[in-house]
């Protein structure tokens, strides 16, 4: 179907070679993939020490969320409140794919690795925007994915970059040439599995979850060997006993109006629904290097809106979960919404940060921005909830049960925070979230498991003509109070970057990319990118000069204007 022209010509085509590469790790089948190499990229050598020290590394961006704690806090101060007004584009790279961009570029020694929808990867010169190579994944015929053909980026280790694909594979590429080193099938896309998240690399393992909560999968987080692509461990996000404690109230104490008697009767009749209960993991885990634990959040149960055929709390859907990094063994969990029938699940990646506990003592914490519109602050030891923030969005009617005719409740099923990444400024004790206000009606209609097809158990409908908007919100995670909030004309999706220069960067669906004052939310700089800026920004430096980079490709899920630009900004 592709009718695109090679982007290699943009860079002047110094050397163009088509490298036919035999796949080394794909079971019985071998296939050929094509990488267009304009010129070879300098060979990176990313060590575990570099990955572990990424938080203080202002030259490279080695993680999708900047560091293992996932603070998205860039420690460079060259671009700051005093000069951000002079920020201007340094270069613009146009990919050949005009479709939703949710990617965060990875940068190593002046080379940027950036992905697009449909699993293209580009290596480009981070100083000039010129192309080194372009890898186009040979997609299998069956792809089953919700919310757009997105990809959120690569991970890097030693001399390889790693990417999950829409057809549920994991690939390792040679960072120098873009040629395929190995490929392994994670799961069967015909059963609803797909990959859009960026992997996380730690201790020679590639950590990756799965999408599929809209298709009746059984979710997981897995570790694969970085050298061979072989499975190291698997953690099922849905345990065989998924029933739980029959919780009647959510994490904030609101009554969820569950009919526990009916659910118990259904459990007796139907048994535990764990095999098709969903529980996708859309985003990177945070890694606690001291305790060798990882923390991630688990998405909604399947089918999304129909609880009648999945009795119980549906563990560990809509939960924060910690597992052992070395073995994948369960450590602890905290469920925000038991037996969710609104798809207001947990998607935004958790952040590790020291927080004040209820007694005012500083403890290792973990925070998460919910689709509910609350930020949840936990104790890292046992996943327990310390506090939750004030609501960042209107929650009128929460939790009104879905009906066949449709019942209105806020927030709509996109949140809240959605998948958008939060950032932290540890000096200010603030986390920065973006939110949607998108009124919807929730409809329920029961149907049996359809074998990998879309399985919503109803529908969420945006109310035609309703007022929609968004906001950027700073939350004090030591008190739960909202420090500042700025309304935006459109619902927000993408996420934030915080910097030691006292700035917060985030984009909007109409094409505006802005820098906010981290302390009070004043808009200090804006740039119109021409398409929705719905990818999270990041920062790096080359030859001592700092850059901010962001993708402007719009968004499929909420239908913001598509584009294909990766834009790097700097000040002179």
């Amino acid at each position, binding site marked *: 179907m592709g*009718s695109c022209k090679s982007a290699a010509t943009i860079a002047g085509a110094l050397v163009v070679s088509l490298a036919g590469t035999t796949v080394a790790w794909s079971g019985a089948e071998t296939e050929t993939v094509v990488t267009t190499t304009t010129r070879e990229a300098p060979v990176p050598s990313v060590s575990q020490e570099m990955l572990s020290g990424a938080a203080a590394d202002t030259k490279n961006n080695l993680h999708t969320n900047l560091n293992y704690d996932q603070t998205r806090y860039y420690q460079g101060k060259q671009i700051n409140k005093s000069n951000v007004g002079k920020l201007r584009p340094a270069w613009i790279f146009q990919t050949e794919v005009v479709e939703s961009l949710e990617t965060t570029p990875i940068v190593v020694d002046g080379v940027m690795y950036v992905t697009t929808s449909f699993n293209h990867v580009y290596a480009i010169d981070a100083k000039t925007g010129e192309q080194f190579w372009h890898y186009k994944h040979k997609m299998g015929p069956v792809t089953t994915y919700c919310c757009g053909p997105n990809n959120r980026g690569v991970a890097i280790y030693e001399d390889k970059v790693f990417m999950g694909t829409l057809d549920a594979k994991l690939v390792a590429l040679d960072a120098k040439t873009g040629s395929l080193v190995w490929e392994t099938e994670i799961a069967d896309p015909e059963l609803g599995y797909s990959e859009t998240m960026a992997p996380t690399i730690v201790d020679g393992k590639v950590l990756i979850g799965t999408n599929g909560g809209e298709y009746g999968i059984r979710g997981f987080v897995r570790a694969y060997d970085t050298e061979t692509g072989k499975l190291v461990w698997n953690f099922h996000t849905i345990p065989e006993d998924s029933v739980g404690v029959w919780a009647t109230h959510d994490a904030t104490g609101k009554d969820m109006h569950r009919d526990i008697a009916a659910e118990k009767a259904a459990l007796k009749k139907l048994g535990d629904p764990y095999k098709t209960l969903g529980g996708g993991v859309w985003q990177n885990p945070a890694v606690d290097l001291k305790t060798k634990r990882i923390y991630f959040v688990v998405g909604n149960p399947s089918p999304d809106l129909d609880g009648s055929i999945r009795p119980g709390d549906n563990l560990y859907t809509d939960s924060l979960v910690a597992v052992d990094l070395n073995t994948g063994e369960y450590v602890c969990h905290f469920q925000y919404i038991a037996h969710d029938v609104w798809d207001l699940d947990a998607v935004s990646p958790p952040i590790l940060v020291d927080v004040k506990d209820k007694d005012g003592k500083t403890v290792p914490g973990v925070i998460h921005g919910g689709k509910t519109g609350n930020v949840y602050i936990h104790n890292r030891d046992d996943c327990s909830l310390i506090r939750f923030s004030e609501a960042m969005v209107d929650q009128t009617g929460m939790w009104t049960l879905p009906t066949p005719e449709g019942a209105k409740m806020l927030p709509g099923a996109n949140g809240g925070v959605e998948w958008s990444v939060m950032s932290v400024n540890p000096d200010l004790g603030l986390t920065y979230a973006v939110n949607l206000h998108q009124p919807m009606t929730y409809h329920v209609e029961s149907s049996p498991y359809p074998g990998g097809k879309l399985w919503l158990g109803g529908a969420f409908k945006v109310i035609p003509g309703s007022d929609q908007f968004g906001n950027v919100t700073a939350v004090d995670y030591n008190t739960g109070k909202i420090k500042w909030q700025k309304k935006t004309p459109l619902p927000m999706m993408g996420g934030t970057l915080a910097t030691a220069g006292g700035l917060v960067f985030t984009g909007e669906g109409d094409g505006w990319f802005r820098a906010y004052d981290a302390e009070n939310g004043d808009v200090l700089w804006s740039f119109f990118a021409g398409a929705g800026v719905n990818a999270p920004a990041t920062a790096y430096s080359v030859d001592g000069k700092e850059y901010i980079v962001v993708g402007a490709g719009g968004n499929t899920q909420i239908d913001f204007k598509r584009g294909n630009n990766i834009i790097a900004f700097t000040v002179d």
Partner: protein
Amino acid sequence: MLQVSRRAACAALLFGWTLFAGASSAEEFNLEEKVKLCATCHGADGVPINKQTPVIWGQNEGYFYLQLRDFKRGMRKNPLMEPIAAQFEKKDMYALAAYFNKKKWPNLGQPSAPAKVAAKAESAIKSIGCRGCHLDHFQGDGSTARLAGQSQEYLLATMLAFRDGSRGNNPGMSNLMSATPEDDFEALSQYLSGLQIDQYLGHGR
């Protein structure tokens, strides 16, 4: 009447083909032969012989495969297609899907929807988020159908069939169609069938 007689002719031709193909079903799959069988109704030039029959030239590969699979499994009901698909192995279905995916989508010459109709359709589309799966230009991808430029009559009948459950191989679609006012379907079918996207379509796959 013309349509009825064409449908009857299609069924009669297929009956003959099916007997013929059935006799050789144990033998090796012959792509050329099966393509001719498909052309009986779906058109030798990609234009189906009647408006109730969908365009399959240029249709997305995963979607095409899954429909054949579902006809074979009886999850999608159609008295003509079920016995045909019953002959196919998985690899045969993939071969047909790949073959037709590479063909150029035909222009059925359906008009663009008037502005008022388009606005009504867009409102319905935004309400249930059709583009979330069928993508920006309704080109679809992978396991999701292309809708742009599909036969209006087929689109309308399909949406209504999802709605009343007579097409039962995608409950998610049934849910979404149930949540859409019946009054919107005519506008949706006019709008989607009139989209001409092949001049600028390119999604990098």
